[in-house]
């Protein structure tokens, strides 16, 4: 049917864009390795293929220890943030819902700050991703617990789950302000570490293979769960009460999507820091170009988000070369005006 056909086409286009971005990401860098050598070296890594790329050991090292993991991390983080954003937007039926909505960012910010300030040094560096991951999950759980208890206190049954979603978002705002306050207090204790804290907050995808392997299982689980729930998010788009009348266990489906999106966010935050705008801009553009159905928006956002962040990283490390811009600055710089443009365009189409 038309839905499946347009999904296939959109995925194909997004995959082509991602392939181009990945290639650009691998080819660009300070070392100036020949494109031919890179292509051959990559081919050489494939099973049953053996070619001599003609690269020096140093060049091989740069390619496989720096560029490949970096591009992979950028792609994973971008894909995870975008698909998590699409998931949150489906659950809250709000196209402006954000992966950091429920206190994930603030939670991770606090735990990373704690690690940098109190552990410091080499131990601190190793502990940062773990701290970010647990902080992001903790922030979301805290928001969720607070939202539940607040929801139980007032309201009543009649408000239904629409009220529940609003309560949860408000709880997320409360948790965010509270955790940010503590984080600010902690970072004042050691002002000399401010730069490291901010470097993490502004995002960085320059990790190594150990970062890739650390988040791969969580990334895989959360992405698969989200992709499986595309049809259910479409059912939820008519509202929770109607979804229930259509036979969907709406509260359970929503909870599963929420947890999967939070896990995806936490994985992305653990290695990438806080990278803004990917989770809002990418699903929005996908929706404009490829259609409303979450069966399209979720997978295409994942691929599109990956391409977007690889490209953003490319810009981040080449504009000021040899210095690097924080990637979060690039996504915000590109994302914010782009977002405004998309909004204006969509308004022009509608009127």
């Amino acid at each position, binding site marked *: 049917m038309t839905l499946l056909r347009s999904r296939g086409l959109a995925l194909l286009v997004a995959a082509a864009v991602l392939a181009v971005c990945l290639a650009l990401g691998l080819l660009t860098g300070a070392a100036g390795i020949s494109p031919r050598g890179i292509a051959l070296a990559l081919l050489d890594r494939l099973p049953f293929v053996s070619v001599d790329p003609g690269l020096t050991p140093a060049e091989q090292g740069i390619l496989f220890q720096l560029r490949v993991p970096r591009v992979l991390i950028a792609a994973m983080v971008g894909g995870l943030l975008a698909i998590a954003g699409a998931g949150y937007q489906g659950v809250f039926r709000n196209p402006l819902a954000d992966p950091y909505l429920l206190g994930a960012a603030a939670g991770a910010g606090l735990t990373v700050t704690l690690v940098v300030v109190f552990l410091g040094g080499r131990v601190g560096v190793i502990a940062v991703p773990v701290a970010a991951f647990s902080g992001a999950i903790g922030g979301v759980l805290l928001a969720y617990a607070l939202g539940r208890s607040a929801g139980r206190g007032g309201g009543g049954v009649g408000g239904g789950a629409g009220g529940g979603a609003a309560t949860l978002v408000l709880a997320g705002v409360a948790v965010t302000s509270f955790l940010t306050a503590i984080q600010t207090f902690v970072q004042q204790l050691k002002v000399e570490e401010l730069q490291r804290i901010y470097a993490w907050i502004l995002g960085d995808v320059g990790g190594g293979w150990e970062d890739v392997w650390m988040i791969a299982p969580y990334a895989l689980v959360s992405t698969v769960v989200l992709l499986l729930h595309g049809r259910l998010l479409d059912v939820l788009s*008519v509202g929770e*009460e109607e979804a229930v009348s259509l*036979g969907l*266990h709406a509260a359970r489906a929503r909870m599963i999507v929420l947890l999967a999106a939070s896990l995806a966010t936490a994985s992305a935050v653990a290695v990438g820091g806080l990278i803004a705008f990917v989770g809002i801009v990418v699903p929005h553009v996908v929706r404009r170009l490829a*259609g409303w159905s979450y069966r399209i928006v979720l997978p295409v956002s994942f691929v599109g988000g990956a391409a977007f962040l690889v490209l953003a990283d490319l810009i981040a490390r080449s504009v000021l070369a040899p210095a690097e811009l924080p990637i979060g600055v690039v996504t915000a710089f590109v994302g914010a005006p782009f977002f405004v443009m998309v909004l204006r365009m969509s308004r022009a189409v509608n009127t």
Partner: protein
Amino acid sequence: MSGGIEGSGGIEVRGLGVMLGEREVLADVGLSVGCGEWLTIIGPNGAGKSTLLRAMAGLIACTGEVLVDGVRARRLRPRPRARLIAYAPQNPLLPPDMSVYDYALLGRTPYIPYLGRESARDREVTESVLERLDLTGFASRRLGHLSGGERQRVVLARALTQQAPVLLLDEPTTALDLGHQQQVLELVDRLRLADRLTVVTTLHDLNLAGQYADTLVLLAPGRAVASGPPKQVLTEPLLARHFGAHVRVEPGADGRPLVHLTRPEER
């Protein structure tokens, strides 16, 4: 434990009560509809008409029993319940970019496994429903581009693809002009007779209620104060007492009562 109702789709409601917070919105409401009949709930604003319908659809917590063919509908899980009862709210949320076809297809949700996808049968059912409602030409139209009458038909299409024997419609004529009100209710009546559907609607227009329903239930703050065939419920004393309205009721050509507003006499 059947309530003396024959066929499939008969409904019996016993002692239904709903509390919203501290407020008792419905108390001890009972009603019964035979299979293939049309029951309309009338009552002044705030009487709890929509709440009653939502409670019958199992969407809000309530006390008492809702029996469909003797089955306790409130005990069912959402999926089997959705195969028995289709519900269309007063102001359905229509995602503006969704197509008419995809929206009607949502009615097949209770037949699709949790992580499954629509089968060829689901698409067939949807296509035939669209055809019956003269919506085939609209199939790829976006919901945001429909007129009021078309929207009501599309919502009805979604309810029909559910293939449930019971249809609960909350104010199906909201925001429609006279001609479209008639068209929608005639359509519901045709489908009811063709498929032997049991129809329960709320309607605030008493004349429409009197014209289409086999049975009326008059709700006045939270209680069923009268029920029976239209001419027993649409009476001047009952309407004066519960609506505070000055009306004259006279039998129409087919014997169904017609309600006329009259200006208060002191004028």
